[in-house]
Structures are given as C-alpha cells and as structure tokens.
C-alpha cells in the first residue's frame, strides 16, 4: 500500500511526467538549445510545483 501511495504521489508525477513535459515544451518553443541546461531549467520550473503539491497538497496553492 505504501509503495502504491509513493508511486501515485505528486513528486513521482512531477519527476516522471511534468519534468520531461516541461523540457519538451522548452525545446519545442525554441526557448533553449537542448542540453543539460534545459533539463536543469525544466527541473527548476517543476520543482516548486512538486514541493507545493507534496507539502501543501495542492499544485496551484489554492485548496
């Protein structure tokens, strides 16, 4: 049960889906060239949302 909870948790969703999604959007919009920097920037965008979802229980602050 704990494993299921972890797998379905916001940090896993953020790291597994939102991070590569943000990275792809950045590249598709030609905002940055591909490389480790674009991955770091993507992580920087997603991380606050992931932390908010995990600790506050909301991706968008309101709850």
């Amino acid at each position, binding site marked *: 049960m704990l494993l*299921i909870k972890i*797998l*379905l*948790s*916001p940090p*896993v*969703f953020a790291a*597994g*889906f939102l991070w*590569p*999604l943000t*990275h*792809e*959007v950045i590249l*598709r919009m030609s905002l940055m060239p591909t490389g480790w920097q674009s991955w770091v920037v993507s992580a920087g965008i997603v991380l606050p949302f992931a932390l908010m*979802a*995990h600790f*506050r*229980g*909301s*991706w*968008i602050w*309101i*709850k």
Partner: protein
Amino acid sequence: MDQISTNQDDSSALSSLNDVQLDVMERKIATKYMQIVPWGAVVWGLGNCLMFIALFPLVLMDIMPLWIAFPIATLNCALAYLPSHEAQHNIIGGPGQRLRWLNECVGHISPIPLVLPYRILRATHMVHHQHCNDPELDPDYDVHARSNIDFFVQYLKNIQPDGGRNNAYGSCLERLGRTDLMLDSAVSEGIYLTVLLAMAWSGHAIEAALLWWLPKLIAGAHLQYYLSWAPHRPGREQGRYRDTRAFKSQLGNIFSAGMQYHIIHHLYPRIPLSLTPAAYRELKPILAQRGCELGNR
C-alpha cells in the same frame, strides 16, 4: 384514472388524484420506457474507447497530426462515462440475463479514457442514488457549488492531491465495506501513470499531455458540471422528487450530456439515457403535480 391522458396538461384532473393514484400512473408511463436495450450506448461505449486508443498509434506514427487528435481525445474522454452509466444500472443486461456479459463489457471498457474503474463507479453511484444531496453520505456531494464560477473553483480544488474529491469515493467504499475495490483504482491509476511516464521519457511528453492528461482533466470538469452539479443544484433538498431537477441548458441537450432530464434518471434509473426526453415529456404533468423542480423545460 386510466382515461386521463398525461399528454394533456390537465392539471385539474391530476390534482384530483391522490398520491397512490399518481404513483400508479407515473409507474405505468415509466414502465413503457424500460426493458429496452440501448444498442446505441453499446456501440457508443465500445467505439468511443476504441477510437481513443487508436489515437495513440495514429499520432505516434505521424498518421494523424496532434492538433486534430487533441480535440478528438477530449471528446472521447467526455463521452466515456455515460455508456458505463447505463451498465451501472444494468440497463443493457441485468444479472442472469442473456446480455449480462455485454453489460459488464461496456461497463468496464467505456470509462477507460477517464481512468475510472467500473466496479468503483457502480458501487459509489448506487450510494449517490440512495443518499442524493446528503452532505455526509452522498459521494458526489463535494461537487456542489453556488454558481458556475464557484463550480470551476471547486473543481480545481477537488482535483488537487489533498482535494476532497480524492477521498470521497474511498470513504464511500469504506462505509460500504468494499475497500477491496480500491485495488481497481490502484491498477487503473498505475496503468495510466505508466503510459504517461513511458511516453514522456521516450520523447513523447507533449503527445501524452494532449492525448490523455489534458483531455481527461477537461472532460472531468465537463462530466462533473453536467452530471453532478447542474442537475442537482442547489443541492439542498433530499427526497425522491426534490433531490434533482430538470433544467434548460443553453448549450443544448447533447452538449449537456442529456442531463436536462436527469430527474427522470433519478426517478427511474432503468430508463435508457436516449429515452429520458420522451419519458420526461410524458411524465411532465405528473412531475409538476408532485412539486418537482422543472426549470424551463
């Protein structure tokens, strides 16, 4: 009593009937619309899911552009629930009947785009019917809101990790003693997440977002707006004739998922969705006599 035609708006004739007589008349009309297999819903449920699944290879193999697939996927998700809803009420085939297998087949397959397990939907939906608008027992109660804007704010709150909606069905299953069904949810969520993650890490994150993630969120709002909120608002009253209503949707009956006649569904859940408008028109004088909220319909 039998000579009174409900097609005539003869309120004076109806007002002379007592509750038992009205009840007999009401059930006699409703029975005409039951025991009919909704083949349209069967084709709709299975075809819609098939089309949704087909979008993934079509897009990934560059056969269909994503900008076309996105609205189709959103439509597929929005259309995914109702055929399963027919199955939840055993309309296609009840227990022991010849078409029972098809009923269960449509029930399980149809809501796949929404990642909603059929057995959980059925169990919780029956509780919704039994305890409609009960703040403690109705699993759909947390959808209630005062206005359109409030509804969308409430929807955004409900879909958050700590949103009330996440626990509504779980709590309901606990009360029913059916926590075993939570496994269905874990499996379906697990498959959904696996697909999203696999697509995202193989360079198809945008495709995953526009084929499943966003369509599911958009369709979820549509579903809850028209199936849970609009037909039950303001949601303050309980009782057979007061816990839901008929209403006039500005966007028509199809866009509102046929929910303008939701009152018929709550009174007679075995009437197929496609027949609720006809049943409503015939039952309307009786429902008015019963004091139902009929809006402008």
